[in-house]
Each structure stands twice: as structure tokens, then as C-alpha cells.
């Protein structure tokens, strides 16, 4: 939502900016919550989405005139519910007309089958901690069900990501398409197809008794969104939403819905560590800067402290899960004042533990690089060369060239970098390697 859309109403600049920000905040913070509540109540995702869209349109129209309500979430909930009931009444009327009957009792609005739970939503109030109350009773937050629906294993990964961003975080199709550099029609199709399957196959808004498996998919989706934002961040992004920030918002939301779950805390800590280094990851030309060469004074210390606290809580449970171990490693880097101050022995041992959970060659590669720092380049090189299955992966050749160079073997190092150039998949990697070859 840009402030430009609102200036057409002829409202002066400063209030519009405040209004646009308030609207955007309401959409981002409350849109998903209201959608989840309505979807649960009426068991109909399309109806819920349409009702929320109508409520947001009403907000765009009336808030600039009447001011931002004191409880924007409650306002949106009441407006959206009214829109949903209007639509159901309209449908019921059409059905009645089609049947040629004045009052068919089976199509009454507010039929128990379509109006699930008993909490009334008139006179909704907010609480200081952001919960919604109706008649003093807390309205349940149904967003976990919505997140689990969006990441249901019956939907493919791309659809899971698109639906989560659209329905849980309230991003528009345009924003998601731009963030992933895919045509908007492709993205819209992906969402439509997923919603059609949800409806046709009756994928439920349920909370499984054992969340562990389902949560794994949720965490994967969040981390996927984060890495997409983290690693594709370019300078051309005035209009692109910051996927890394959105993923952090989502993991924060999940942490609120499922407090004190080590895997959620671990992922949140991991992403917070990575994100704290965002200003140092690229140079003025947008080129990637490796960890060792980053300007550590630009790392956000407040965020590192937050991540440390999250990780501390995640570590209370044993044994640590995959994301917790990844966070441990990120934390060892984030808390080192210089590359030389890094506790490399602990990094290696965290990689050892990670390898037992995720015995992938890429983890083994990272471990070999850490070992080179903890021990000697030659030790790292030996570990690196013992990894099978990475000969066609450019990063393996980069690491090998680097360790050869540090062992004083310039010629083999040059050959390894040349191999890496040949295998690089994008221009930025190639430019980076050509710089290395010149050095």
C-alpha cells in the first residue's frame, strides 16, 4: 500500500503519511489475524478473504475521514464479519430466488454449520498486549491454523511460500511476484491453484495433536523466505518488499503463538543473527562481502543481543535441533569482535553435531573450512578433499583454492579457482572469483 493511493482524495501530506502507515500497519498486523478468525468461523477461505478485503477497503475510505480507530484490529474484525454476513445473506437470497421459495429454512444465514464458534464479535475491544476481547472473553488467535494450512504438505513448496506470504503476512500478489522476480500472473495462478486444491480436497484448518512434523514444514518455509530475501537483496529494491524482514516478522509471530519451542526459538535466533549483518554483507557496488572481510562495526549489536537471548532459551532443551545448532554457529561468528577472535574449535564441534542431524556434503564443506581456521589450512584441506559429491559445486572449488593458497600452494590454488569460475552459476559469483584469481 503506497501513500500515493490516498493522496488522490486530496488529503494533505503529513496526515496521509500517518494514515497510510496506520493502514499498512493494520493490514500487516491484523489482516492475517482477522482472516484466520473468519476462515475458521465460516470454514471458507474465499469468503474470509473477500470479507477482509472489503473491510480494508472500508478502512481506506473511512479512516482518513473519521480517524484511525483506537482498536484497528477490532474495527477490521467487526467490519469483515459484517461483510461476510452480507455476502452469505446475498447468497442465501439468490438461492431462495433460485428455488422460488420465500423462506427455505435450510439456507438461513447464521446456520450453525457456517457460523462455527459461539463467541460473539460485537463490541470487540483490544488489550494492551494486542489481543482481542469480546465481552471480556479473549477471542482466540487462529493464525497458527492458518499457517499450518498454508504450509500443508499436500501443497507444493512454492505454493506454500506464496500462500503464507499472501494470507498470513498480507502481502499483495504484486509484492510477492516482485520479491521473487516472477510474473504476477504466474504467482496469481499459483495462489489460485493452491486455494482451489484446499477447497476441492478439503484441506482443513486443523491443529494436529503432534505438531512436530508439521512445524518442520512451517520452519522450512520461513527459512526459505528469509534466505531468498537475505541472499538476493539488491539495491534496486525500492518497490520490493524486504522478504528477510517479512520472514523475521513471521517467525516472531510463530514464536508468540507457540512460545518456548526450541526449534522456533532456534530459527528465530539464527535469522536474527544473519539479519544483524545485513549492512555488511554487500559493498557499495552490491558485491558480496565474505564474513572475514565484513566491517563488523556495522553489525547491529542490539539485534545480536536479542539473538543471544533467544538462543539461550532455545538451548535449555537437549539435544539441540538443526536450527539451534545453525544458530549456535551463527552466534559464534556474530559475537566475535574479529575473525581471529572467533571460537573456531566450538564452531567445528557445532558442525560435528550438525552433521549427525544433517549429514549433507555442504555442511561437511563448512565444517572443513572451520577446521582450517581452528587447526591448520592443511587439516581443513584434508577434510575438504575427503568429501564426496561436491566436485560439480563451485563453492567446493572456491574453498579448496582458498585453502591451497593459504598452504602456500599458489599454482594448484589458481587451478582450483579456475575450476570454480567454470562452475559458477551467476555473474556475481563469477566476478567475485575473477577478483580472487587476480589477487
Amino acid at each position, binding site marked *: 500500500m503506497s501513500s500515493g493511493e490516498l493522496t488522490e482524495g486530496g488529503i494533505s501530506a503529513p496526515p496521509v503519511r500517518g494514515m497510510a502507515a496506520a493502514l499498512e500497519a493494520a493490514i500487516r498486523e491484523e489482516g492475517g489475524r482477522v482472516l484466520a478468525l473468519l476462515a475458521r468461523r465460516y470454514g471458507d477461505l474465499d469468503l474470509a478473504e473477500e470479507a477482509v478485503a472489503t473491510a480494508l477497503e472500508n478502512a481506506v475510505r473511512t479512516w482518513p475521514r473519521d480517524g484511525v480507530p483506537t482498536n484497528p484490529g477490532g474495527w477490521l474484525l467487526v467490519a469483515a464479519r459484517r461483510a461476510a454476513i452480507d455476502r452469505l445473506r446475498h447468497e442465501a437470497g439468490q438461492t431462495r430466488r433460485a428455488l422460488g421459495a420465500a423462506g427455505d429454512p435450510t439456507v438461513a444465514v447464521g446456520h450453525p454449520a457456517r457460523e462455527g464458534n459461539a463467541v460473539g464479535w460485537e463490541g470487540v475491544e483490544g488489550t494492551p498486549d494486542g489481543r482481542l476481547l469480546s465481552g471480556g472473553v479473549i477471542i482466540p488467535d487462529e493464525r497458527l491454523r492458518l499457517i499450518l494450512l498454508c504450509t*500443508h504438505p*499436500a501443497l507444493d513448496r512454492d505454493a506454500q511460500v506464496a500462500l503464507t506470504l499472501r494470507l498470513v503476512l498480507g502481502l499483495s500478489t504484486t509484492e510477492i511476484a516482485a520479491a521473487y522476480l516472477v510474473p504476477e500472473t504466474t504467482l496469481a495462478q499459483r495462489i489460485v491453484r493452491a486455494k482451489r486444491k484446499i477447497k*476441492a*480436497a*478439503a*484441506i*482443513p484448518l*486443523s491443529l*494436529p495433536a503432534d505438531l512436530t512434523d508439521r512445524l518442520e514444514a512451517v520452519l522450512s518455509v520461513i527459512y526459505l523466505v528469509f534466505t531468498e530475501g537475505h541472499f538476493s537483496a539488491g539495491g534496486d529494491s525500492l518497490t520490493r518488499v524486504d522478504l528477510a524482514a517479512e520472514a523475521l516478522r513471521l517467525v516472531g509471530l510463530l514464536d508468540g503463538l507457540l512460545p518456548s519451542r526450541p526449534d522456533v526459538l532456534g530459527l528465530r535466533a539464527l535469522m536474527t543473527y544473519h539479519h544483524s549483518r545485513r549492512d555488511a554483507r554487500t559493498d557499495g557496488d552490491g558485491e558480496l562481502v565474505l564474513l572475514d572481510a565484513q566491517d563488523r562495526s556495522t553489525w547491529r549489536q542490539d539485534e545480536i543481543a536479542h539473538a543471544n537471548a533467544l538462543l539461550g532459551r532455545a538451548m535449555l532443551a537437549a539435544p539441540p535441533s538443526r536450527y539451534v545448532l545453525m544458530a549456535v554457529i551463527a552466534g559464534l561468528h556474530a559475537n566475535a569482535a574479529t575473525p581471529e577472535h572467533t571460537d573456531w574449535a566450538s564452531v567445528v564441534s557445532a558442525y560435528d553435531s550438525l552433521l549427525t542431524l544433517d549429514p549433507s556434503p555442504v555442511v561437511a564443506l563448512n565444517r572443513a573450512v572451520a577446521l582450517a581456521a581452528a587447526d591448520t589450512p592443511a587439516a581443513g584441506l584434508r577434510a575438504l578433499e575427503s568429501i564426496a559429491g561436491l566436485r560439480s559445486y563451485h563453492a567446493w572449488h572456491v574453498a579448496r583454492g582458498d585453502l591451497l593458497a593459504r598452504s602456500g600452494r599458489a599454482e594448484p590454488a589458481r587451478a582450483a579457482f579456475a575450476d570454480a569460475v567454470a562452475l559458477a552459476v551467476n555473474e556475481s559469483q563469477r566476478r567475485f572469483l575473477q577478483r580472487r584469481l587476480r589477487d
Partner: protein
Amino acid sequence: MDYVILIHGDESFPAPAPGSPEFQQFLSGWMNYNAELRASDNFVAGAGLQPTATATTIRRSFGVAEPTITDGPFAETKEQLGGFYLITAENLDEALEWAKKLPVPAGSIEVRPTTFRADQM
């Protein structure tokens, strides 16, 4: 909501020989599953199929009045349809639970919602 569960597997994989302890185990797995499914409200129908060598395919083409009849299944695949169930379930999760419980050691199990049921038209 009704769902069909289609069980695909490699039919060339030797089934345990009747009389062997493995066969007993294989049989009781299916008997227990069927008993549990039929005791629930979910069961509608189900059958195991004879090997694809016993299949006969009738093919119809646009504009051609007489169908052709050929020996065998309509496509050669690595896994073959070996059996199916028709169940009724509250939602996909419930259908998937039943599908996951099938005593199938290897293969793929497809779960599809139905559009209608011939016995309910």
C-alpha cells in the same frame, strides 16, 4: 467428503509365499487394516487387483464408433495400480491418516477427492 485411495506398487516384487511366516504377517496386516477401516464410519468400498497381465484395456477415440480392445494396462509404468479404497472422511487430513496406515511396504499411495459417487446420484 469422499476420497479414493489408489495404491501403486511394483507388482514384480515377489509377494511372500503362502504358508511362510512372512505371508502370515502380510495377511494379518491387511486383515487388521480392513477390520479397523470397516469398523470406522469411513469405509465405503475397496478391492485389491490382480496383476496388470490380467488387464484388458478398451480405448475410445473421438469420432470412432467402435472401441479397440487391447491386452494389458493402458500404460507401462514402474509402479502399477494394485488396489483401491473409497472412503469418506471429514477432511484431507483424516483421509491421509487412513492412507498412511496402509500396510504397504513400498510404493506410492495417491489420495484424490471424488466429484460424485455413483451410488449417491
